[in-house]
C-alpha cells in the first residue's frame, strides 16, 4: 500500500499530538498499579488511545509497547484478544444491537434485520460513507429493557424498528444524543483482523444451497487477500521513552497520588 507523502506528514503530526496528550494519562495509569507491574496499564492505555483516535492504530500499539518496554507483538497479541479494541478505523457511530437470549426472544431479530436493511451492511461491516459500523453484540446486561443496544458504548433501550429508523435519521442529521466517535482515518469495509467474517449463508462455516456442509473456501487464499488488502503499516515511529519505573516491586503496599 503506497502512502502519499503529505498524508504521512499529517499522520505524523496528528499522532504526535495524540501521543503527547495520552502520555500524561499513561503515567497516571502506570502509577496506579503496583511497581514492577506496568504491563497492567496496557488495556487502559489502549482505551485512552482509542478514545482519542476512534481506533487503536498501529502507531498507538507501537507507542504503548515503547512506554511499557514490551515487545510490539505482546501488545498486538493482547489487543487482538479483546473485541472492544478496533485495530482498524471504524465509523463515527458504532451500532451494537444485542443478539443474545433475552433480546432474541423479544424481537431482536427484527431490529437486526432493520439495521441491515437500512444500512446495507452485514454484521461487522462499515457503511461506504464511513458513518456507521455495525456489530451484533453479545448480552449487554440490560435484559429488562430488551431489545437493547449500545451506540458508542451508550445504552439505547426498548428498541422497535421505528425507533431504529428515527435513530438513524437523527444520526444523519447530527442531532442524536450520543456524540459521534473521533475518526482519524477512513474506515474500510470491515475492521476485524483475521477474526470472524460475516456469518451470512455462503460465508465460511455457514451452509448455503451450493455448499450445504458449510465448509466454504478453506484454502487460506481469502485470508491472505484480506490481510494484504487491509494492511496498515506503522507510519509514525513511537517515542522511545520508557514510562516504566524501575526498582524493586512493592507488592501490595498502599500507593496513592501523594507518592507520584
Amino acid at each position, binding site marked *: 500500500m503506497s502512502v502519499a507523502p503529505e498524508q504521512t506528514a499529517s499522520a505524523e503530526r496528528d499522532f504526535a499530538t495524540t501521543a503527547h496528550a495520552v502520555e500524561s494519562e499513561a503515567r497516571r495509569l502506570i502509577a*496506579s*498499579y*503496583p511497581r*514492577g*507491574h506496568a*504491563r*497492567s*496499564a496496557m*488495556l*487502559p492505555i*489502549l*482505551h485512552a488511545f482509542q478514545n482519542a483516535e476512534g481506533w487503536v492504530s498501529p502507531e498507538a500499539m507501537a507507542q504503548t509497547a515503547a512506554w*511499557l518496554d514490551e515487545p510490539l507483538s505482546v501488545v498486538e*497479541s*493482547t489487543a487482538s*484478544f*479483546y*473485541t*472492544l*479494541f478496533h485495530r482498524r478505523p471504524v465509523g463515527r457511530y458504532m451500532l451494537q444491537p444485542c*443478539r*443474545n*437470549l*433475552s433480546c*432474541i*426472544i*423479544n424481537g431482536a*431479530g427484527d431490529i437486526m434485520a432493520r439495521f441491515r436493511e437500512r444500512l446495507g451492511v452485514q454484521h461487522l461491516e462499515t457503511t461506504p460513507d464511513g458513518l456507521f459500523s455495525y456489530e451484533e*453484540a*453479545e*448480552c*449487554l*446486561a*440490560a*435484559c*429488562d*429493557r*430488551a431489545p437493547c443496544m*449500545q451506540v458508542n*458504548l*451508550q*445504552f439505547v433501550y426498548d428498541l422497535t424498528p421505528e425507533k431504529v429508523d428515527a435513530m438513524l435519521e437523527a444520526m444523519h442529521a447530527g442531532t442524536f444524543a450520543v456524540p459521534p466517535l473521533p475518526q482519524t482515518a477512513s474506515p474500510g469495509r470491515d475492521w476485524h483482523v483475521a477474526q*470472524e467474517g460475516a*456469518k451470512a*449463508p455462503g460465508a465460511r*462455516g*455457514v*451452509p*448455503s*444451497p451450493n455448499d*450445504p456442509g*458449510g465448509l466454504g473456501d478453506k484454502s487460506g487464499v481469502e485470508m491472505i487477500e484480506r490481510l494484504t488488502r487491509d494492511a496498515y503499516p506503522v507510519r509514525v515511529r513511537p517515542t522511545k521513552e520508557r514510562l516504566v519505573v524501575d526498582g524493586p*516491586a512493592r*507488592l*501490595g*503496599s*498502599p*500507593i*496513592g497520588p*501523594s507518592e507520584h
Partner: protein
Amino acid sequence: MPVVNVLTDGIGEVNLRDIDVYRNRGGYAQWQRALTELQPENIAQMTSDSGLRGRGGAGFPTGRKWSFLPKNGRPRYLVCNCDEAEPGTFKDHMLLLETPHQVLEGILLGAYAIGSHHAFMYIRGEFEQGYRVFMEALAQARAAGFVGQNVFGTDYGIEVTVHRGAGAYICGEETALLNSLEGKRGEPRLKPPFPAVKGLYGEPTVVNNVETLATLPHILKNGPQWFASVGPPRSPGFKIVSVSGHVRRPGNYEVPLGTPLRELLEIAGGPREGRTIVAVQPGGGSSACLFAEDLDLPYDFDTMAQHGTMLGSGAIVFFDETTNFVEAALALVRFFAHESCGQCTPCREGGHWLEVTLNRILSGGGLDSDIDLLLSVSHQLTGINLCPLGDSIEPFLASVVRRFEPQFRGYVRRPESILVSA
C-alpha cells in the same frame, strides 16, 4: 410479596451516587466501625457465620474462600469482579450505576478482612458509564478520607485501582480476569494453584462478585444471624434476581433465597396477556432449563442443583409458548462459540461446530441426525476444558432439544426430500 430492600434500598428514590446521601443513610458507618472497633478476623468470622455464598455464579461460601489464603505475611489482593456478562444477568450493572458507594464500601471491608492494602475493581468494558460513575464515587470517598493512607486516623492504608475490561465474557472467570488485570490476554489459568495461593502477580488473591461484596456492610450492620436466618439453611440471605424474557415487568428484584419460582414470576408481573410460561432458565445462560411443572420449586442453590440446573448469577429468563427454541438455542451456542478463548480444543471446536449445525438446521439444510449430533457433541465437549465456559454449552441446549424436540425436527429435511432433490 417477599420483595425486600437491602442492597436495593433507596434505588430509584434518592441519588445514592452522592456520597452525602449515602452517608446520611448509614453509608460508610460499617467501614468506620470495622477500622476503629473490629479486627480483620472478626469480619471474616461474621462473613463465615452469615453463610453468605458467592453471588457471581459458582455460589462458593465467601468466608471459606477467604480462609484459603495462606497466613504467610505476603502481600495480598482483593479483586471485585464487575465483568458481568452472563446472559440474562443485569444486577451488578444496576448496583454499579445506582449505588457505587455501597459497592466500594463492600470492597473496602473485604480488603480489610483479608488483610489487603490494594484492591482492584474490574469493570466490564461495555459499562463505560458505570466506569465513570464508579470513578467519581471513588474520588468522593478519597476526598472524604475513606480511601488512602491512615483511614480514620488508624495506621491502615488502602488503595483502590479501577480497571476497565475491553469486551471478553471469559474475563468473568476469575483466573482469566487476573490475566486481563495483568495486561494479558484473558485466558483462564490452569487450577490449581487457585488464586488464593497464587493469584494476581503471583500473590494470594481473592476475587469476589460485586453483589457479594455489597452485601458485607449489611452483614456487619445487622449481624450474621440476621442474614443466616433468612431462607434455607444452606442458601441463606437475600439475592437480587434479574428477571427477563416473556414477563410483563422484567427487572431486578431483591428477594429471600428459597422464594418459589412461581412467586418470582408473579413479582415480575406474570406472563403476558393470554400466554403461558412453558420453560424457565433459572441461572444465566450456562444453566439448564426447568419447565412449567417445576415452577413451584424454591429458588435456592441446592434445590436448583438437585434438579439438574443451577442458581448461577440469579438471572431468570421465562419463556412462553411463542418461543422459538431453535433460535434461542442458537443465540446461546453462538454466544459461547464467540466467547471461547480458544485455548481448549473441545470448547473452541465444539462450540463452533454446534453453531454451524444449528445454523444448518435453521436454514432448512439440516438432517434428522443433526438433532442427535447436537446432543452428542455438546455432551462430549463437557468436563474436559480448563474452565467452565465449554461446559456451559450443554445444559441449555440439551434441555430444550429434549423437551422441544418437535420444534427442532420441524426444521430438518426429511430423508425422502433429500432423495427427491438428488
